[in-house]
């Protein structure tokens, strides 16, 4: 069990290589093999869940080996409750994405599954790395498979979309790199050695002069916010989503965006709490704008995939508000909402993909009355939409409720207005999703082509059912998951109680001698 994290990372990566040597025509073998590997990874991650000690907020399954001694860099892995949930989400989404790709992907099959498995390993690496250099390597490495996934198997405008995605995220990443190196160097006098081990430097970052802390926080956070993506850094997202193949969209929405919010919790807050509190108003305002803006744009979209993409902007803004509210409830809510968004939006993208497979269009106007020909499909679609809206009994409610509850009285946000305005997003999401449902599923069938559409197939059900199980599970009994992250969230909050937050808010940002606060 000691090496389980390494196994989780490198099982998909190493076992992706044989795919390249399979015979090109043996499509079944390639698909089955890729699915098998991803299922094994999932089983292992479930084992990880069961052997995880939820009573502790410390990093568990820690593995620390010297990697590059010269810069004191370690191959340092570990999970706490937050990363554990994200790993579970990752390993769940990948088999689903692989199944969802069986039909749509018809060219370069070998390369496709090879890249998917590579991506899975790297994603788990991001969520488990506790050394900043290691983290950065995985973080950047993800761009490579993603670039090809969108660029080769994407839609009409795929090249524009993938280049935009690549450059945007790279822009954030290089700032992150500067931030990482600078942090290491500024911490060096206090730690004695140059180190980028986050457990170690987190104890020293508060000694850095505050003005520098704020710059470092900005360098780190900008990279994460682009990934989230927060308004106004979101423009890459609709393009990437619309052009990506279905599985690409699912992974992008369910997992890649979570890298940003994960980074906010683990690094922005974990390393620079004072700057985090100081800059809360700026980011909270952006998040609120993003929530409203994303929701409004969703309403007017004509393309289903774009609609879901803009709804992601809105939902992710919600998660960011939860994180910056800095209360136990809101943080818990954000963590669980990260999972929820992964499940619901992932499922929505799958549905859009299914429709696209049948009609080769994603324009809402092309549809109408599908409920008559595809009753099961319509019913499931409604459940997922409701979960995304936040209907009690389904997962979205739990996350949104916790975030709103925590954020309303948050000392860090300072005022309840952020929460009140954000809460309107729930109404908006009801508007765009139900209206989407109405336009696509209800009413008379006007187009001839729609009359012969087949209902959901077994293979498609296989992709949706696991997501639905968790959607309902979290909605009915969220404790299975909340329990895991509870202690970790407390640890992440660094025992920041209201008085401490007040105190940090009143610290002057002028440069001063390093001292312990």
């Amino acid at each position: 069990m000691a090496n389980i994290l390494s196994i989780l990372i490198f099982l998909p990566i190493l076992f992706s290589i044989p795919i390249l040597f399979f015979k090109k025509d043996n499509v079944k073998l390639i698909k089955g093999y890729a699915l098998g590997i991803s299922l094994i990874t999932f089983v292992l991650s479930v084992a990880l869940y069961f052997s995880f000690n939820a009573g502790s907020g410390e990093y568990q399954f820690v593995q620390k080996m010297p990697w590059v001694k010269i810069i004191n860099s370690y191959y340092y892995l570990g999970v706490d409750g937050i990363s554990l949930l994200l790993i579970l989400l990752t390993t769940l989404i990948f088999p689903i994405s692989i199944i969802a790709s069986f039909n749509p992907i018809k060219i370069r099959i070998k390369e496709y599954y090879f890249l998917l498995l590579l991506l899975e390993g790297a994603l788990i690496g991001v969520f488990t790395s506790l050394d900043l250099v290691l983290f950065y390597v995985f973080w950047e490495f993800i761009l490579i498979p993603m670039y090809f996934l969108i660029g080769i198997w994407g839609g009409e405008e795929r090249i524009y979309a993938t280049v935009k995605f690549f450059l945007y995220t790279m822009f954030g990443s290089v700032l992150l790199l500067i931030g990482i190196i600078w942090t290491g160097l500024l911490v060096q006098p206090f730690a004695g050695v140059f180190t980028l081990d986050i457990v170690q430097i987190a104890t020293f970052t508060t000694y850095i002069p505050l003005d520098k802390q704020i710059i470092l926080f900005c360098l780190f956070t900008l990279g994460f916010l682009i990934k989230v993506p927060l308004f106004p850094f979101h423009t890459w997202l609709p393009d990437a989503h619309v052009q990506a193949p279905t599985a690409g969209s699912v992974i992008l929405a369910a997992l890649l965006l979570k890298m940003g919010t994960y980074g906010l919790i683990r690094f922005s807050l974990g390393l620079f709490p004072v700057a985090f509190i100081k800059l809360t108003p700026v980011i909270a305002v952006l998040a609120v704008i993003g929530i409203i803006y994303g929701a409004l744009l969703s309403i007017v979209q004509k393309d289903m995939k774009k609609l879901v993409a803009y709804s992601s902007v809105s939902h992710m803004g919600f998660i960011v508000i939860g994180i910056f509210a800095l209360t136990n409830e809101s943080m818990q809510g954000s963590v669980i909402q990260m999972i929820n968004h992964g499940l619901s939006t992932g499922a929505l993208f799958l549905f859009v993909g299914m429709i696209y497979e049948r009609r080769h269009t994603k324009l809402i106007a092309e549809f109408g009355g599908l409920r008559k020909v595809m009753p099961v499909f319509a019913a499931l679609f409604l459940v997922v939409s409701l979960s995304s809206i936040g209907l009690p009994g389904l997962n979205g409610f739990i996350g949104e409720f916790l975030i709103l509850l925590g954020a309303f009285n948050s000392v860090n946000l300072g005022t309840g207005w952020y929460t009140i305005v954000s809460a309107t997003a729930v109404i908006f999401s009801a508007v765009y999703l139900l209206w989407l449902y109405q336009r696509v599923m209800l009413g008379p069938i006007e187009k001839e082509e729609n009359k012969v559409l087949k209902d959901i197939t077994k293979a498609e059900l296989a992709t949706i059912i696991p997501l639905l199980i968790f959607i309902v599970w979290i909605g009915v009994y969220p404790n299975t998951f909340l329990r895991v992250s509870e202690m970790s969230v407390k640890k992440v909050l660094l025992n920041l109680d209201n008085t401490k937050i007040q105190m940090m808010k009143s610290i002057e940002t002028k440069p001063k001698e390093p001292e312990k606060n």
Partner: protein
Amino acid sequence: MQELTLKQTLNSLSGFIPETVLIATVIVCLFLDLILRKKSVIVAVAGIVGLLVSGYFAYLQFGMREVIFTGMAVVDPFAVFFKILFVVSTIFVIIFTISSKEIQESTHHNEHVYLMVAMALGAFLMASASNMIMMYLSLETVSISSYILSGYTKRIKRSSEAAMKYVIYGAASSGIMIYGMSLIYGFTGSMNIYEISAILAKSAVTGNPVIVMSIIMILAGFGYKISSVPFHFWTPDVYEGAPVPVTAFLAVTSSAAGFAVMIRFFAVTFLQNNILLNGKLQIIPGINWTEIIVVLSVASMIIGNFTAVWQQSVKRMLAYSSIAQGGYIMLGMTMATQQGLTAMLVYLMGYLFMTLGAFYVVILVANKVDSDELVDMRGFGYKSPVIAVFMAVFMFSLAGIPSTVGFVGKFYLFSALIESNMVWLALVAVLNSVVSLFFYIKVLKYMFLMKPEEELTPKYQYGIGNYAVLLLLALPVMFFGLYFAPLVKIAEYSAILIGLK
């Protein structure tokens, strides 16, 4: 001046073995070519063996710190590091000439081998020269051989045109350089950089326009070798016009040699030796050459990267990219610290493999499609996936994506910059690397994302040797990208110049 005796000279010969071997290699190859004429592989093999032997002797010199030939040259880890770098790159380039169609189809292609060895000899001397006469001579040895090589395929118009431009630029800028040297000589009365440094440190030179002017003039010579802005105008034309192996040689060996001589000249001449304040070497007061280098470096990065974006020819794009890469490497000089020097050496090692690799792919592509235009690479990822994947590795490395050696180099450079409180410069550099990413992935875009015009194209076949060479270049790129401790150790060990520390 040291007393010149026969005994001293003979003693110096023992520190001159690698160079002697190279001279012997040139002569042997020349005769072999005369005798064998057609059998090009034997001459090439002889050249490679000579280089290996010379590299071995250079390796034995590691750790030596000697001044040879009455202060004309020195043997120190820094010089030895570069000698080995030159040996490796020259061997690869000779292998390139064997597999390049455009060279094999030209007349007298064997002459490439010994001209390249001769260039390596010049590069060796550039790395170890400690006297301005020696610097000028070695620089010209490299230059003159490269003029010939770039105009070698004389039936091809653009090749002789490139050579023409190269000669004019080269001769003019080295002329400007020695004018600067003559001014420094007039000011200090010495040609030896150690003596010059001592004299400058004693005399009050604050803001002396003669010194500043001569620094700029000397930079013209060095800057032209490393193709730094604003001495870069020859680079795109020559890179595009010359045969690809020669271009690779110019981009790697010749510019690395330029860096070697430039680092030694500036670090020795304009730093106060033996005085360390807070672990930092002190610049001789009043001569703010680092500021000039900052300007050149930033200009190189910006102009190189932004111009590369518009290029349609891969060779031209790589030319601008190497201008930009030169800008990154120069960043290491701007803070005049040991860390900066180490970072430059780390970067140069990575640069060697990734640039040679990229050029080799260009050769292999050109062998099949007879073109180096991006458009003609369309769909290459489907016609020859393995080659294209290697190209992806090299491109990602040049762009500095983690898990490649290019990232390690950038990581070290940025660390050194931030450590010297030059964060803004590091920011300029990283933003530039985002721009550079745009054109590096453009190559991949053409190779993988765009389908070839004709639907069913036959797969291109390459020999096992071609793959082996590519693998030899790509493995270090990936291995040192993930485990860079040895790389850094070598660089730290080599960042020792005689007279410093």
